[in-house]
């Protein structure tokens, strides 16, 4: 798509963190933006300040996915909903805390992918799915987070296979942020845990990633991914403060 102006963009998990950075960036491009999140009070703020439409609900609810897609008819769906993992080494986790990101992030992604394929979204639609650099490097203090994020990346591939087979013209793309983002709640919690383990300050730990990635800047990268035709086909992208966007697979 050459411009985002007038495009219907649905951001699931867009009230905070990186998802909010995406919302700000696409609002600035005059897209018609709808935000799905659980926190109704926060959504009311977003509605007032940014003029976006809002849907309050649990992203892991398949009925919500189906009705939101029917209602909004998005040409861009950004799947960013996820839980903040419990930070502790494996043997200090409970099965429940270990599974948190599977039960939230993977489950939500699973239902929204299904709803996208079943609706189906219009030809030429894009679905951006939040994986993580942890899916490559692992994340020993975050329970099942890295495995869950890997599953999400793998699912983007499965969804593309089905979209091709069914000739739907929908493209699923995984986003892999290759650094801990200190400005988000999740990134902050992770950075604090890893810094403590290494015996360094959170700030110096974060400095090890080089140039920080701010949520709004991340949003600008998403705008570029959507509007620059050279990013139309790759199935996954690495995103970093230092190096920007880099396709990860053919």
């Amino acid at each position, binding site marked *: 798509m050459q411009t985002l102006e007038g495009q219907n963009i649905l951001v699931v998990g867009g009230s905070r963190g990186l998802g909010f950075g995406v919302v700000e960036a696409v609002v600035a491009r005059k897209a018609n933006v709808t935000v799905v999140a659980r926190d109704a009070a926060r959504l009311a703020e977003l509605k007032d300040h940014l003029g976006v439409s809002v849907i309050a609900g649990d992203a892991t609810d398949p009925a919500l996915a189906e009705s939101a897609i029917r209602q909004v008819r998005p040409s861009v769906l950004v799947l960013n909903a996820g839980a903040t993992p419990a930070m502790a080494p*494996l*043997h200090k986790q409970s*099965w429940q805390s270990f599974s948190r990101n599977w039960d939230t992030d993977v489950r939500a992604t699973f239902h929204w992918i299904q709803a996208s*394929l079943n609706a189906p979204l219009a030809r030429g639609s894009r679905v951006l799915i939040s994986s993580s650099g942890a899916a490559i490097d*692992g994340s020993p203090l975050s329970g*099942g987070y890295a495995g869950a994020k890997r*599953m999400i990346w793998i699912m983007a591939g*499965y969804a593309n296979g089905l979209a091709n087979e069914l000739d739907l013209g929908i493209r699923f793309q995984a986003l892999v942020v290759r650094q801990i983002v200190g400005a988000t709640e999740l990134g902050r919690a992770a950075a604090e845990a890893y810094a403590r383990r290494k015996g360094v300050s959170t700030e110096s730990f974060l400095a090890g990633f080089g140039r920080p990635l701010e949520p709004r800047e991340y949003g600008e990268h998403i705008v570029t991914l959507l509007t620059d035709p050279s990013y139309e086909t790759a199935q996954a992208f690495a995103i970093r403060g230092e190096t920007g966007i880099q396709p990860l697979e053919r």
Partner: protein
Amino acid sequence: MGELAGKNMVVIGGSRGVGRCVAEAGAKLGARVLAVARHEPALRDLARNAPAIEVLAIDASRTGAPSKVFGALVPDILVLSGGAIPLTAPLHEQSWREFAANWECDVRIAFHFCKAALSRPLPVGSSIVLIASSAALSGSPLTGGYAGSKRTQMLIANYSQKESDRLGLGLRFVTLAPGIIPDSDFGRVAVNAYSSYLAMSASEFVRGLASPPTSCDVAKAVVQLSLNRCQSNGQMYIVTGKGFEPASLCKW
């Protein structure tokens, strides 16, 4: 005396497939072997055919399973081979429960037993061998959350090794990644699903696989890695019909 004489071996999922081959190979080489599985009939069959092998019927994915198992036998070699057979269907035809079957079984088993190995801890020098799958590296579009679950098992082994090293526990965690094993129950299911998807016969599909391992090939790899103590801590190995070789998870 066999090469494993004096060793205690516990095999989770020891009544069928790869687990059964491992249990039988272990017993043959002189280890004291405890085979653990959910289904009593298969365990009874194993006990009848291999009387030297001890058996325990228990659901290994339950929180309390490790203490019951280690109460029966504290292993020098713990092999985690049990798991669910996933529904074979494309992503949009699965329910969430079906999609999550391997997470709720295979990953649970790996989590509880690796956690127990670190917390108890198992004796210095013990090996914990997880049987994952090369689907963790290449994906498996018809088996729901199987590939991500197997990936998570590899990560669990990797994290556990780091934790053992940090705490100086002297444990060794190793993961095996075999491709489709056509002679196992799940292998047969996978072969049928993928061959019918590709509109070819099962035997044609198997002929097209690059040296697929048998259950016993995987068991051989387990035994050799349990014996060989050199530089393999935390390592992942790809297993084919030709043998096994180390691979790096980060490169996949």
